[in-house]
Each structure stands twice: as C-alpha cells, then as structure tokens.
C-alpha cells in the first residue's frame, strides 16, 4: 500500500487549492485554521486511541502544555524568546516528555482506568496553569507571541492564506509521520495491542514500552497543535480554553472520522470543527435571516440550541456510521 492513499492525496490537493477560490480573508480561513489545528490534535489522538486503543480523555492538557511551552519560550514578556521555529521544536519535545511522564506510571492501567487518569490529568493541568500565575499569568494568558519567519520575511497574522498553508503544511508533515509509523514496526505493535493486548504481549511485544511510544507521539502532536493554536491567536488564551470539552471534541473527531484511520481523522476534523466554527456560528445569522430569533424567551434564541444540535449530530453520526465516516478499511486496508 502506498504511504498516502488516494483519499489523503485528494484531501491535500483540495485543501491546498481551496484558498484560491476563497478570497484572502473571512470566516472560511478562521474555520479551516481551526480545522487544521484540530487535525493535528486528532492525528495525535488517533495514534493513542485509534491505533493503540488507549482511551485518552486528556488531549486538551497536552495542547495546553504545548501552547504554554511555546508561549513561555517565545513571548517577549519572558527573557527566553527563542523564536517561532525553535519554539515549535521545543514544544514537540516537551509535549513528548509530558506524555512520557504521565504515561510511565499509568500506562499499565487497563482501559477505563487509564481514561479517568487522563481526564484527571486534564483537570490538574488546568488547575496548575491557573494557579501558577507568576509563570503562566493565570487566566490572563500569555501574549503576544511571535510570528513565523522565513528568512527575513515574516508571516503576519492578517495573512490568512499564509497561515492556512502553513498549518496545512504542518498537517501534511504530521500525516506523513503518522502514516510512516503506522506502516512500520511501531505501528504494527500499536495495532496489535488494540486488537488483542494479551496475544500481542505473548508475541513478545512489550506493552508498556509500545504504549509509551504511542502516548508520547500523540502528546507531541497535540502539543504541536496547541502551540500553533496559540501562535494563531498570538495568545495562549486562558487555561480554560483547553478544558475537558476540547478533549471531547478531539475524541469525537477520531471516532466520528473512523478509529485508526488517518483519512478519517482528517475528515472528522472537517466535520466536527466545521460544524463548530461554521454551521453553529452561522446558525444565529441564518435564523435571523429567516425571521426567527429574539430575546423574548430562552427557546427563541438560536444560540440556546447549539448544545442540542451538536449532541444530536453526534448521536446521529454514530448511529448511521458506527465505524466512523471513513473507517480504516476504506482507506485501502491497513495492509
């Protein structure tokens, strides 16, 4: 099988060409930049949950670690100021180390015990970021953050297309990395653990080591996503920007897309984040245009329906496509 099967190639071709038809700014860019950030987080979670079968409910924590690492090391409110690119490198490394530190003592736990530990880790991370305000600026967030430079040229925040392609480039790199790993010894070991942990162990696959590599890889990708998220906003936002709901969003991306499918994760990110950033954002506008809406009571405001629509959409998707929109087999078999 090819490293990048047709659906993935098609995705990148379409995505790379899309901005040519979309003008140079607008909601489209905001939505798709968010989609790409969450594609990275989703790819990370796909390694952990999709390939290795470890339920991780704390991806947002790794995003937060990435965002804050990047911010502390690059923002001009601190003396480090190592610049955008070294910041990204440091973020990936710290993300992997954070994954290792959480994983080392806990990856021996079975399924849902691990899930609650990762969920707890998410809560702890938020609290620590909030409480250590001398370092993290508490709920203020750290800002401003540097823009990426290419030689002497700097990508400014308004250059939406530039950011779009930059992020798409990062997604492409991540997809390449994940696909390469998936189709190597590490990937086979991950899949074998998901398929049958005991048989895998009896075949000589060391479970903890293997899970640890998956966990660190996933965390590193999530941290990268977090750093780019912060760079896009030029601020880390407040710690609550990385709360449990974000972890849930990442999980929904992977499962709705199709567990263990790289193409599925990419599509899952488009669907879930797109719904979040386009459909639900436009909902009030559409309702207003249709003459619905107002502040007279709780039901009249379209904003009050967002949870309901989001929830219904989730239930419907898994009901109609229990294996995800693009399960691995459609990707051309994992073989």
């Amino acid at each position: 099988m090819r490293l990048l099967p047709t659906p993935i190639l098609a995705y990148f071709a379409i995505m790379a060409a899309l901005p040519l038809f979309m003008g140079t700014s607008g909601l489209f860019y905001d939505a798709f930049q968010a989609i790409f950030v969450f594609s990275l987080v989703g790819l990370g979670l796909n390694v952990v949950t999709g390939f290795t079968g470890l339920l991780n409910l704390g991806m947002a924590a790794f995003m937060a670690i990435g965002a804050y690492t990047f911010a502390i090391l690059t923002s001009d409110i601190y003396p480090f100021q190592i610049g955008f690119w070294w910041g990204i490198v440091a973020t990936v490394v710290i993300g992997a180390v954070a994954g290792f530190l959480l994983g080392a003592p806990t990856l021996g736990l079975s399924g849902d015990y691990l899930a609650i530990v990762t969920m707890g880790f998410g809560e702890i991370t938020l609290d620590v970021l909030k409480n250590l305000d001398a370092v993290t600026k508490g709920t203020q967030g750290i800002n401003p953050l540097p823009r990426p430079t290419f030689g002497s040229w700097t990508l400014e925040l308004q250059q939406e297309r530039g950011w779009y392609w930059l992020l798409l480039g990062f997604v492409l790199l991540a997809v390449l990395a994940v696909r390469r790993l998936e189709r190597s010894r590490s990937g086979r070991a991950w899949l074998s653990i998901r398929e049958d942990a005991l048989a895998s162990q009896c075949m000589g696959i060391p479970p903890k080591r293997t899970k640890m590599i998956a966990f660190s890889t996933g965390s590193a990708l999530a941290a990268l996503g977090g750093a780019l998220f912060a760079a896009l906003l030029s601020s880390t936002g407040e710690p609550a920007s990385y709360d449990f709901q974000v972890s849930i969003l990442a999980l929904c991306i992977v499962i709705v897309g199709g567990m263990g499918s790289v193409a599925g994760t990419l599509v899952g990110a488009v669907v879930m984040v797109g719904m979040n950033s386009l459909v639900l954002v436009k909902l009030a506008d559409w309702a207003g245009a249709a003459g619905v809406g107002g502040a007279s009571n709780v039901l009249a405001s379209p904003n009050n329906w967002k949870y309901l629509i989001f929830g219904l959409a989730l239930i419907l998707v898994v009901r109609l496509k229990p294996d995800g929109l693009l399960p691995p087999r459609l990707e051309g078999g994992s073989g």
Partner: protein
Amino acid sequence: MSLLEVRGITMRFGGLTAVDDVTFNVTEGQIFAVIGPNGAGKTTLFNAITGVYEPTDGTVRFRGSPVRLEPDARLGFRAAVVAIVAGLGAFLAINIQELWTVGIAANYVLNQPFPWEKAVADVLHAARGVPFAWGVLPAILGAGVGAGTVVALWQRSRRTPDLIARAGLARTFQNIRLFTDLSLVENVLVGMDSRMRNGFWTNLLRLPAFSHERAWTEREALDLLQFVGLSERAHEAAGSLPYGHRRRLEIARALASKPAVLLLDEPAAGMNPSEMVELMELIRRVRDRGVTVILIEHHMKLVMGISDRIVVLQYGKLIGQGTPAEIRADRRCIEAYLGTEGEE
C-alpha cells in the same frame, strides 16, 4: 540438561487449586503433549509457563534460567534517577512561583538583555531560603513516591508474557487470538517484532536501515506463510480467513520469533479428520525445523501419533507421564482419560 523444567507449579484461584504441584521436564527436539480431561488445568498450566499467570508456587526454568527480572543495578539506577527527578519536581512544583518571581520576573526588563548569571544566583539564593516544610519535606516525599512507583511497577513486570516470548517460548491460544484487522503478513510481522532492530526514529525518518529490515522481514514472513500454506492470501485481513486456516496463521505468527519452544493450545480443536492429518504433518515439520513442541490436545489419535512424550493431568494433578506406549499401558491414565475420551 532439559530445555524446559517445570518444578512444583501450583496455581490457586481463591479456594480453587487449578494446578497442583506439577513437575516435568521437556527435552530439546521433542514433541511433548499435555493431556487430560476438561478442567484438568492444562491451559492454566500453559498460562503459568508463558507468564500470563504468576504461579502461586513453583518455578519454571528455561535453559536453566528462571526467565524473570531480578533486582539489579539497572533497577537501582532507574529508581535513583526517578527519585531525584521526582524530588526536584516536587520541590519546584511547590516553590516555582517564588523562584520564578525572584529569578525571572524581577530581573527581566522588557526588551533589555537578560542578566542570566544574576538570575541564577538569585534563584539559588532564594532556594536556600525556602523553609524546611516547603523545601526539604516535599522533596523527600516526592523522591519516596517516585522510587516507590518505580519499584511497584517493576514488581508487577518481573515475569510478563513478552519477556518469556522474547526468551524463546512462543504460543498459540485455545480460542484463536489473531489480530483480525491486520493482514496475514502483518500478523506474522508482529510475531517477528522481537527480532527487529530498527527503532522509532529509524522508522519515522526512513533511514537506510529501514528498507533493509523491511525487505528481509517481509521476505521471511512470506516464507513462513508459505510454510503453513497460506501464501496466496498473504495480504488479506486475518479476519477473513476460514477457521481451519486461522490455526495455521497462528502457528506461523508464533514461529516468526524463531522460538526454541512452541506451545500449542488444542491446535486440532474443531478440525475435521483430513485437516487434522495436515496439522499433524505441520507439527512434525515444525519439530523438524528444530523447534521443541509442547501441545495440549484432546484428539488421542493426534497425540498418540506424533508425541514423543506425554504427561497426563487430572484435577490439576500430574497422574502419569511417559511415551505414548507407556501411557497406553498406564491403568490410571486410561481410567482417568482414555477410557472416556478415547472412544472419540
């Protein structure tokens, strides 16, 4: 010397003794069978040998060694490193606010060069002023918890199936456990993992060693599939195989690690007579590759036909062992087992 020595293995689950003080030796190159009625503790014995269960009592020695991690310098080193890191971490976690303020915030002026030496000196000075309860105590606590964690985790991983598999004991399962979403080749490649040398980075960056290893492992995997007669379906998903072929794939997967011993748990279960003949043939060929075979089996024809040596279990106890001819002559064995099941 025997290849595998089983000494006084006992397995208790709560009040139930599934395996009771079983002792036997397996010599290299044999086909060795474990028989006994249902519930005699055969699979439990296998699980105890392969590390799936930790035996309540008794030892298993393979090539004279117990195949388990012993406390060594590495463990001590690891515990020490983790203790230091955790201790420092606990100290920092509690005092980072103060230290950061003293070292970084107080010394940094926007857009001015940062006086690193002064910052370090300030931090060290401030660290010395941290009260005992907020400095030394958390550090000791952190170090203790860190070292304790290392030891607790190590304790649990002393004799795990992967260690035993890597030592050279491969196995199959009574209720076939393939990786159904993986292709046949990939199943075999998973079995070959212990012989692969390329690490994470080699595979990620596709360094030259990657393609070299990929080439020889895939070739060997295909050879193994050929050996068990499944090479035509090499790239299909294992889940699509018919039942009879799954056994063969499981055997190929187990052989991939080049084991010295292959443990087969009821390989002929659910097979028709002609399939069984093929299986006997396959087991012999496995033995001829130099692999010692230990099998659990109900089909007397198969067992008597290929085994060099047999042990008989009943209610977890070993009630007899010997060559097929000796077992056939042993009254207790016949009563316990052959008398009822032999009519099959």
